[in-house]
C-alpha cells in the first residue's frame, strides 16, 4: 500500500479534532481535541520524513510534542484556575468578549 494513506489518516484525524474543538463546550475535551489535531500533524510529519528519506520531519514532530507538552501544562493550569473562579469548565461561560 502507499504510505500516502498515512497522510489521509492524518487529515481525517485533524478534521475530526477540529470539528471537536468547534462542537464541544467542555474546556478539557476541547483541549483533548487540540491534542488530537497536533498528533495528526505529527503523523503527517513522520510520514513525510519517511517519504523524503530524511529525519527532519521527525525532528519537527519532536518539537511539536515538546511544544504540545508545554501548551498542555499551561492550558490545563488556565482551565483549573478558570474552574476555580467560575466553577465551570465550559468555554461558553467565558464569553466576555461580547459587547
Amino acid at each position, binding site marked *: 500500500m502507499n504510505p500516502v494513506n498515512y497522510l489521509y489518516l492524518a487529515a481525517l484525524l485533524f478534521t475530526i479534532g477540529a470539528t471537536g*474543538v*468547534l462542537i464541544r463546550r467542555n474546556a478539557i475535551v476541547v483541549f483533548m481535541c487540540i491534542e488530537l489535531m497536533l498528533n495528526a500533524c505529527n503523523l503527517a510529519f513522520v510520514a513525510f520524513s519517511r517519504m523524503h528519506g530524511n529525519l527532519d520531519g521527525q525532528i519537527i514532530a519532536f518539537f511539536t510534542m515538546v511544544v504540545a507538552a508545554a501548551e498542555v501544562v499551561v492550558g490545563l493550569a488556565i482551565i483549573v484556575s478558570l474552574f476555580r473562579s467560575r466553577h465551570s469548565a465550559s*468555554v*461558553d461561560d467565558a464569553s*466576555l*468578549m*461580547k459587547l
Partner: protein
Amino acid sequence: MENLIALLIAAPLLGAAVLLVGGRRLDAVGHWLGTLLAATSFVIGLVLFADLLGKDAEDRTLTQHLFSWIPVEGFQADVAFQLDQLSMTFVLLITGVGSLIHLYSIGYMEHDERRRRFFGYLNLFLAAMLLLVLADNYLLLYVGWEGVGLASYLLIGFWQHKPSAATAAKKAFLVNRVGDMGLSIAIMLMFTTFGTFAFGPLLGTHEEPGLAGGASEATLNGIALMLLLAACGKSAQVPLQSWLGDAMEGPTPVSALIHAATMVTAGVYLIVRSAAIFNLAPDAQLVVTIVGAVTLLFGAIVGCAKDDIKKALAGSTMSQIGYMVLAAGLGPIGYVFAIMHLVTHGFFKAGLFLGAGSVMHGMNDEVDMRKYGGLRKYMPVTFITFGLGYLAIIGFPGLSGFFSKDKIIEAAFAKGGTEGWILGGCALLGAAITAYYMTRVMLMTFFGEERWKNQPTRSPQAPSAEPAAAYGGDAAAGHGAAATAEPHPHESPKSMTIPMIVLAFGSVFAGGFFSIGDRFLHWLEPVTGHSHGDSPVSALTVTLATMVVLVIGVAVAYAQYGRRPVPVVAPRGSLLTRAARRDLLQDDFNHVVLVRGGEHLTRSLVYVDHTLVDGVVNGTAASVGGLSGRMRKLQNGYARSYAVSMFGGVAILIAATLLMRAV
C-alpha cells in the same frame, strides 16, 4: 464753481450724520440745525443757478469728478456729479420745498420726543435725493435711488410703535426694491452693451449722440423697459403703485415732501434723463405712455372714493404723476412739460398736503373727511392756501396747474394717430375726475355743516400699546387724553402757515411764470430737446375742452357734496366705489397671490429642506448605523463561533491555493 456741487449734497449729509450720531444732547437744537443745513443747500443751489444763468444756453453744464469709486478691470464707476438744467431744476425744487417742509415740521413735530431723529432722516433724504439728480452715471444714481428709498422707509415707519406704520414702511421698501431690480438690470444691460453706464458717453449731448445709438433696438427696448419698471416702483405707477396709499402712515410733512413733491417724481426724472435711450425705443415709449394713462385714471378713481384726506391726496398724486409719465412717454413733445408739471405739482401738492396736515393738526389727527366740515372759518389761512392749491391742481385758468396740465393734454393729442386720440382722451377724462375729487375734498373739509360738532373724534389709526403722550404729531396716542374729546379746530402756528403761504404763491404763479414766453421750454430744451408734434386739434380747442370737463367735474362734485349734506358714515356705495376704496382690489390681489403664496412657498421649502435635503444626509447616517448594528451581532463573544469563522477561513484559503495550483 463746480466744487459747490459736492457741498450741495454734503450739507444735508453732514446734518444727517450729526443728528443721528449726535445723540440726545442735540435734541434741543437738532431741528434748527437740520433746517439750517437744508436752507444752506438751497442757497448753494441758488448760487449755482445764478452761475448757470450766467452762461449761454448751450454749455450750461457743470461737472465735478470727486474720486474713482469702483475701479475694476473693464468696470469704471466714478463718484462724479453733473449739473445741467434738468438737475438744476430738481435741485431747486428739492432744496426749496425741502427747506420749507423742514420749517413746517418744526412746528408740526414739536410734541414728538424723537424730533431730532426725524430731522436727521429728512436731511438724509435730501442728501440722497440730491445725489440722485446730480449723479453723472447710472450706478451713482442708483445709490441715490435706493438712498431715498431708505429715507422713505425710515420716515414712513417713523412711528414704529404702530404696526400699521411699520408694515407700510416695509411694503414701500419692498415694492421699491422690485423697481430697483429693474434699474440694476438696466444698468447691467448698459454695462454689457456699452461697457459703461456714465451719462456723458452713453447718452451724449444734443449735438453729438452717445453710444446709445449704436445698440440694436431690441437691446434699447430692454433697457428702456427696465428703466420704466424702476420708474414705476419709485413713482407709484401701475402695477407697482400699491405702496403709496399706505405710505400715508408717515408724518404728513413726509407725505408732502417725499410722497408728493420730490421722491415719487424721481421716476419721471429717470425717464427724462434717459431720453436719449427712450427716443430710440419706440415700443418702450408706447408702454410708458400706456402706463402713464392707466395710472392717471387709476389714481384719480381711487382718489374719488377715499374718505381719508391724505389717502385721497395720495390718489391724486398718483394720477398727477401719471400725467407726467404719460408726457415723458410722448418723447421730445412731452419731456419739457412733464418736468414743468412736475415742478408745479411739487408746489401745489406739497401745499395741499401741508394744508391737510394743518387740518389734522387742528382736528386731533382726525383724517376722515366725513368728520370735517365747515372748517374755513376756523382755519382761514389753511383754507385759503389749500383753496389756491385746489384751484391750481384742477387747472383753474391762470394758475400753474392750468398751464402745465393743459400742455400735457395737448402733447398727448399731438402724439398723433389713434393712440394720440386715446391718450388725449384719457388725459381729458383724468382732468374731469381730478376736478371732481378735489372739489369733493374741498367741500367735505371746509364747507358744509360742521360734522365734528358734539361727537368725539377718534383717530382711525390704531392706538398703540405705548404709554400715551410719548408721541406727538398725528400719532394717535399723541393727544392721548384728548383723543376722544370733541376737537377744537384752531389755526396752526406760524412755522406751519408760512411754508403753506409760500407754496401757495408757487402754485399760483409758477405755471404762468414758466409758460410766458416759454421760459421753461427754452431752459430745458438743450437737455431734453423739444419738438412740436403735429396736433390734430388746435391748442385752443384743447384748452376749451379742458375747461368744459373741468366745469363738469366740479359741478358733479358740488351736486353730490355741496348741495346735499355729507353722511358721517360712508354709504355702501356702488361696486366701483367699494372697489376704489380698496385701491381697486389691487392690494387684495397682492395679498392673495404674493403674500399668501409666498408664505406657503417658504413654509413648504422649510419643510423640504428639513425632510428632503437634510433627510438624505441623516438617512445615510442612519442606514450605516443600522448596518453596523447588524454586523455587531456576529460578535457574540463565544470563542467557538470565532473559531468556526477562523476554520472556515482556513478552508477557503486552502481552496484558494488549490485553485491557484489547478490553474
